[in-house]
């Protein structure tokens, strides 16, 4: 039978499109339908559970610089957070990665400036970290759900395997809580503090505090909370009326960063310290 070239090309084109389409559909179906069945998974009995994990920070308990260093190091060391420095030993502000760190009052709460405030108060350091917002802008913008809000406990989590490194979340976060791996972090990880039980990240993905989900899963408090001076940091379930954090937030004066943006941060800062617990 004879067929002209045009018809041949049409048939070839349609068959390839159908073939490609079928294989793409097959692959997508495979990706979406695999997964572990409920009889294949279990939870550690010691795991800590909550409906809404939240944190209260009492800055009055942090008296020396060493107090901050201890908290930041606890987190950064167990999570293999790299320490980027410039050739002259200063912090490399371009490449730096930080999950929890200290900022002065005027930077932690930019809208609350008071020009007549005492200098020492303006310079007062505050611990800042990801706020694990109730209405997170970063989750709203992520095109792959690489950052997502856990349904059961409200933690804003990072899936390092899915992140495409578009950094939309970094643009969206109103608190500057996120860091990006501009290059391979491994050379900048201090080998003295390497934690072989936790992965590193690779270049090209965003990272941030995860409220230590891996520790919560085995019944431990987040590393920063454990390393904080006594009464400095509280961590618990805001939906549990008996939890420390709920009681503090209910009875004492606390502030959150940029609450007017509607993000609903879960990190509360206690005002007017004094001895509590």
């Amino acid at each position: 039978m004879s067929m002209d070239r045009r018809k041949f090309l049409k048939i070839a084109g349609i068959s390839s499109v159908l073939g490609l389409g079928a294989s793409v559909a097959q692959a997508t179906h495979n990706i979406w339908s695999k997964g572990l069945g409920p009889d294949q998974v279990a939870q550690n009995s010691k795991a800590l559970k909550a409906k809404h994990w939240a944190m209260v920070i009492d800055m009055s308990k942090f008296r020396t610089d060493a107090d901050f260093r201890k908290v930041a190091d606890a987190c950064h060391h167990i999570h293999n957070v790299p320490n980027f420095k410039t050739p002259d030993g200063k912090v490399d502000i371009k490449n730096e990665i930080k999950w929890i760190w200290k900022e002065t009052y005027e930077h932690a709460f930019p809208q609350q400036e008071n020009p007549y405030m005492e200098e020492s108060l303006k310079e007062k350091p505050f611990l800042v970290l990801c706020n694990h917002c109730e209405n997170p802008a970063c989750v709203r913008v992520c095109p792959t759900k690489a950052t997502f809000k856990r349904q059961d406990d409200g933690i804003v989590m990072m899936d390092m395997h899915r992140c495409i490194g578009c950094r939309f979340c970094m643009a969206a976060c109103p608190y500057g809580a996120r860091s990006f791996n501009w290059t391979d972090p491994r050379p900048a990880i201090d080998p003295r503090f390497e934690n072989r039980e936790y992965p590193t990240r690779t270049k090209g993905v965003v990272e941030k505090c995860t409220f230590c989900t891996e520790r919560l899963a085995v019944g431990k408090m987040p590393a920063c909370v454990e390393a904080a001076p006594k009464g400095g940091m509280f961590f618990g379930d805001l939906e549990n009326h008996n939890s420390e954090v709920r009681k503090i937030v209910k009875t004492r004066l606390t502030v959150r960063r940029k609450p007017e943006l509607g993000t609903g941060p879960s990190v509360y800062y206690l005002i007017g310290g004094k001895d509590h617990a």
Partner: protein
Amino acid sequence: MLEKALVGSKKYWMWVSFLGTLILVGLFNYLRQFSYGLGITGLGRDVSWGLYIGQFTFLVGVAASAVMLVIPYYLHDFKKFGKIVILGEFLAVAAVIMCQLFIFVDMGQPMRVLNVMLHPTPNSVMFWDFLVLTGYLVLNIVIGWVTIGSDRKGVPPPKWIKPFIYLSIPWAVSIHTVTAFLFAGLPGRHFWLSAIMAARFLASAFAAGPSLLIILALIVRKTTKFDPGKEPIQAIGKIVAYAMFANVFFLGLEFFTAFYSQIPGHMESFIYLYKGLEGHTELVPLMRLSSVLAVVSLGMLLFPGIRKREGLLAFAAVALFISLWIDKGFGLIIGGFVPNMLNQVRTYWPTVTEGLIALGVWSVGFFVLTVLYKVAVGVREETAGVEIEH
């Protein structure tokens, strides 16, 4: 019809080789970036989007501007645009390809880019951007190719192409609206958090894109036997004038809201860009140049006496294009990141590698544009004297 791009004068081949060299240089530098990471650019924790995203933003506008020829010709039967709508559509193709390339080179994990399709996330504006840009690319390739193909045969295009042409009109508006939404919905970045962001984007798009078209039309007239015609170019000039007026007006509106309200969050980015903040004045010369060029070009475009003289029109078009390239392709993006969310001034400047990669992407775009224009011009030269019926 692609065979038309395979024959050309010595100048044509020199131009194509020049672009090819720049593409290879860009590719080589991209491989370096792929190996080292995005740290090879000037980006950092505080300014995490820069040249690449800025160029993408600017070029989406250029791509959308094809609609400024499509609407008069197909909706309002403005026959003067008959021979040059194809130039707008092919420019859109080249521009969208550049947009997608700029996004690709900006990704930290480009090999995972398909995750956006495998895990669709309708609440993410970037998901929609991906879709609408791809759709617009396909639309313009199909529309452009089919119409120029039927022009070559001297027949009206097939009826089924009309719905696609009509679809491309709202679609063009959508690509730039969605791109504006990337910025305009982010809480905390008050420089971008403005309702008229999308309107500003569209106005600057409809000024910059057609300006480029004027320049391209003049180049086509000079280097080929196809003359787009004095009147179509004048008509585009009028469109550019109105669009640029709207653009400058909208920028004025932003300035008013920021400075009349005196709210620091709204003012600080403008101050950084145009005056300098905490001693950082890196962008001030560029931004002031952008303003001067904007005023000069708008001034020239508003007077028909000046617009009618093609040399002056070309000058105004170039000045406008550069002005908006600075404003949208650079200033707008960086302004959103300075000061950062902790009110600190941390600045950004692209590196040489970054610039070469960007230049490589522009060269790919111009390469595509050259090939497509060679085809279109080839058909027009072939069918000179034949009336177009669309």
